[in-house]
C-alpha cells in the first residue's frame, strides 16, 4: 500500500504545555486512522498540523513523501480538512453555500440539488443557513465529501451534532472513500463501527515532559 501521509517526530507545545512529542505515524491509501484521547490531549492540534494550519514545534509532515512547506499548493489540492466549525455562511442558503464551496474546490459539474438531497436536506435548499439547525449546517459542510476527489480527508469530530441517520450516511461515504483508495484521518468520541485491518488507532495521552515520564 502506498503511504499517503507520514509524520516524523512531531512535537507540539501550546501555551507552554507539551501536547505530544516525537509523534510518528503513517497512513496508507485505503486506511482509516482514528485519533483518540481525552479532552485537551491535542487531537485537534495534530489534525490542524497535518492539514497545514499550524506548524509543529519540531518534526515534519510528509504527503506522498513530500514535506509540507515545499509545495503548499500540492498539499492543499490533495487534502480536505473540515474542522469543528462548519465554514457555512449563515446569510447564504444551503444551495449558495454548496455552490461557492464547490467553486473553491474546483469541482466543475456538481449537481447541488441532488447532493443536498443525498445529505438529507431536501426541501431546505433555499433557506438561509441561519434558519437551519447545527446538524443541518454540518450536513451542508459535509456535502463536500460527496464530490471531493482529494485523496486525504482530515475530519475533526465529523459526527458532532449529527443524528444516527446522518452518522450512518457518513459511514457509508467513508467506506466508499477508502474503497476508492482514499485515506481518512479523523477524531471522534463516537466509536467507529469498523472492524478489520483497515482501521488504525492512535491514542494521544496527556504528557508532561518536564516530569521526565516515558
Amino acid at each position, binding site marked *: 500500500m502506498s503511504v499517503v501521509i507520514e509524520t516524523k517526530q512531531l512535537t507540539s507545545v*501550546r*501555551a*507552554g504545555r507539551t501536547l505530544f512529542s516525537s509523534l510518528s505515524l503513517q497512513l496508507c491509501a485505503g486506511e482509516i486512522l482514528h485519533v483518540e484521547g481525552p479532552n485537551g490531549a491535542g487531537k485537534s492540534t495534530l489534525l490542524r498540523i497535518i492539514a497545514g494550519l499550524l506548524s509543529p514545534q*519540531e518534526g515534519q509532515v510528509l504527503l506522498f513523501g513530500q514535506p509540507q512547506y515545499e509545495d503548499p499548493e500540492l498539499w492543499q489540492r490533495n487534502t480536505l480538512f473540515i474542522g469543528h466549525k462548519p465554514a457555512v455562511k449563515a446569510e447564504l442558503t444551503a444551495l449558495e453555500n454548496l455552490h461557492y464551496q464547490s467553486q473553491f474546490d474546483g469541482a466543475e459539474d456538481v449537481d447541488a440539488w441532488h447532493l443536498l438531497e443525498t445529505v438529507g436536506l431536501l426541501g431546505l435548499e433555499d433557506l438561509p443557513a441561519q434558519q437551519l439547525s447545527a446538524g443541518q449546517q454540518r450536513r451542508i459542510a459535509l456535502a463536500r465529501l460527496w464530490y471531493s476527489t482529494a485523496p486525504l480527508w482530515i475530519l475533526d469530530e465529523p459526527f458532532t451534532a449529527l443524528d444516527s441517520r446522518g452518522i450512518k450516511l457518513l459511514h457509508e461515504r467513508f467506506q466508499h472513500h477508502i474503497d476508492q483508495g482514499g485515506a481518512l484521518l479523523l477524531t471522534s468520541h463516537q466509536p467507529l463501527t469498523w472492524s478489520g485491518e483497515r482501521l488504525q488507532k492512535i491514542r494521544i495521552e496527556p504528557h508532561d515532559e*518536564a*516530569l*521526565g*515520564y516515558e
Partner: protein
Amino acid sequence: MWKWLHPYAKGEATFRLLGAWLPWLSGLALILVSVGLVWGLFYAPPDYQQGDSYRIIFIHVPAAMFSMGAYTGMAIAALIALVWQIRTAEWAIAAIAPVGAVLTFVALFTGAVWGKPMWGTWWEWDARLTSELILLFLYIGVLALYYAFNDARTGAKAAAILSLVGVVNVPIIHFSVYWWNSLHQGATITKFSKPSMPPEMLIPLLISIAGFLFLTAALITQRLRNEILKQELHRPWAMQQLGVEANNGVQ
C-alpha cells in the same frame, strides 16, 4: 535551520549569556549617565540664548534617539522572529517595547517641559514632539497586542507583525509630520538643530548619549532575562535559577 539546533538549551544559553553581560552594561550605563548628566547639569556653561534651561537637552536628546533606535531594534527582532521562528526574538519584542515606551515618554515629557520656558506653553505641536507622541502610541499598541492573547506565542507573533507594519510606517509618519509642521508654522525657530555646539556642551552630550545606549541595553537585557525565565518556567534550569529545586519525576 536554527530551529533544529538545541531547541531546549537555547533559552538557557541565552539567559546565561545575558546574565554575563548585565553587570557590564549596567555598570557602564551608571557611570556614563552619571558623568554625562552631572557634567551637563553643573559644569557645562549656560547657553547664550536659552540660559540654563537648555540643560534638559542632556536627557531629551539621548532619550529621543534611543526611543527611535529601540523601535528599530524591536522591528529587527520581529523580522527575525517571523522569518526564522526564533523564540528568543519573540521575547525580545516584549522586552524592548516597555523600555522604548519609557524612553519615548521621557523624551516627550522633557520636550514638553522644555517647551514651557521656550514657547510659553506646555504643549506645542512641534514636529519632533508630535512624532514622539505618535511613537508612544505605536509602542503602546505593540504592548497591548502582545498581552491581549491567552497564548503567549500567538501574541508575540501578532505583535511582531504589528512592529513590522509600524516600522514601515514610522518614516512615512515622520516625514508627514515634519512636512505638516513646516506647512503650519514655518517661522518658529527649532530649538534642537544647533548648527555648531561648543565642545564644553557637546562632550557631556556625547557622554550622555553613550550612557543612554548602555542604559537602554541594560534595561532590555534585564527584561529579556525575565521574559526567558517566564516562558521556560517549567524547565528545571529555570526553576533552579529562581531558587527552586525542580522535581525530576520519579526514579
